[in-house]
């Protein structure tokens, strides 16, 4: 019974990792590649680690596996966001068939600050909201 579970989890994990690799090779755009990497590879590696935990069935292995999975779940989106932001600043173009670019014209190219549409009003409100002592 436990062997079948190990086979299913490891097979699904390897399949997701393979899909992530194919997506990295075939996707037309950096942002799409980052998206594929983050989601599919996280799920695939998580399933592979779960199969290892099911094989050993010890508390020490289980804690290690849970630590690695939580660490990957926390750090993968952070790293993807950072590298995608950098890619936008470096000036990499979106794919030609991309429909919408929400950040277009909203990033200050020299200071790397994101301007909102009503930034001045927000700053005024912040000044007003500060209590005068």
């Amino acid at each position, binding site marked *: 019974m436990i062997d079948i579970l190990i086979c299913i989890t490891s097979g699904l994990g390897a399949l997701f990792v393979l899909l992530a690799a194919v997506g990295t090779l075939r996707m037309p755009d*950096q942002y799409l590649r980052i998206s594929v990497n983050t989601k599919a590879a996280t799920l695939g590696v998580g399933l592979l680690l779960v199969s290892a935990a099911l094989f050993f069935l010890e508390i020490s292995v289980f804690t290690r596996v849970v630590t690695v999975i939580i660490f990957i779940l926390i750090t993968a989106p952070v790293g993807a966001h950072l590298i995608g932001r950098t890619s936008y*600043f470096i000036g990499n173009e979106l794919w030609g068939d991309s429909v919408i670019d929400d950040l277009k014209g909203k990033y200050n190219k020299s200071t790397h600050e994101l301007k909102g549409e009503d930034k001045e009003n927000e700053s005024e409100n912040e000044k007003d909201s500060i209590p005068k002592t």
Partner: protein
Amino acid sequence: MNVHDFLYYIILPILSISSLLVFVRFFKGPSIVDRVVALDLLITIGIGIIAIYSVISDKPTFLDISLVLALIAFLGTVAFAYYLEKRNKND
């Protein structure tokens, strides 16, 4: 066919093929961001290979190395993103 054979003859070759595909993107990648992303994915696939290898060789100690590798992958991505953005800012 027991679990050992299944992992050794099916899962490990799939992981090897996927890491080869990522290597193609790593060498081909038009910009440096592609290479950083491919490197991140390579280390992530390495974590999976270590997990399967610890099952095959029946040594759970290898799972410690996967934790260190996850840490290194995150640090590498963050450092590359930080310095690439900074280099672009100073130009």
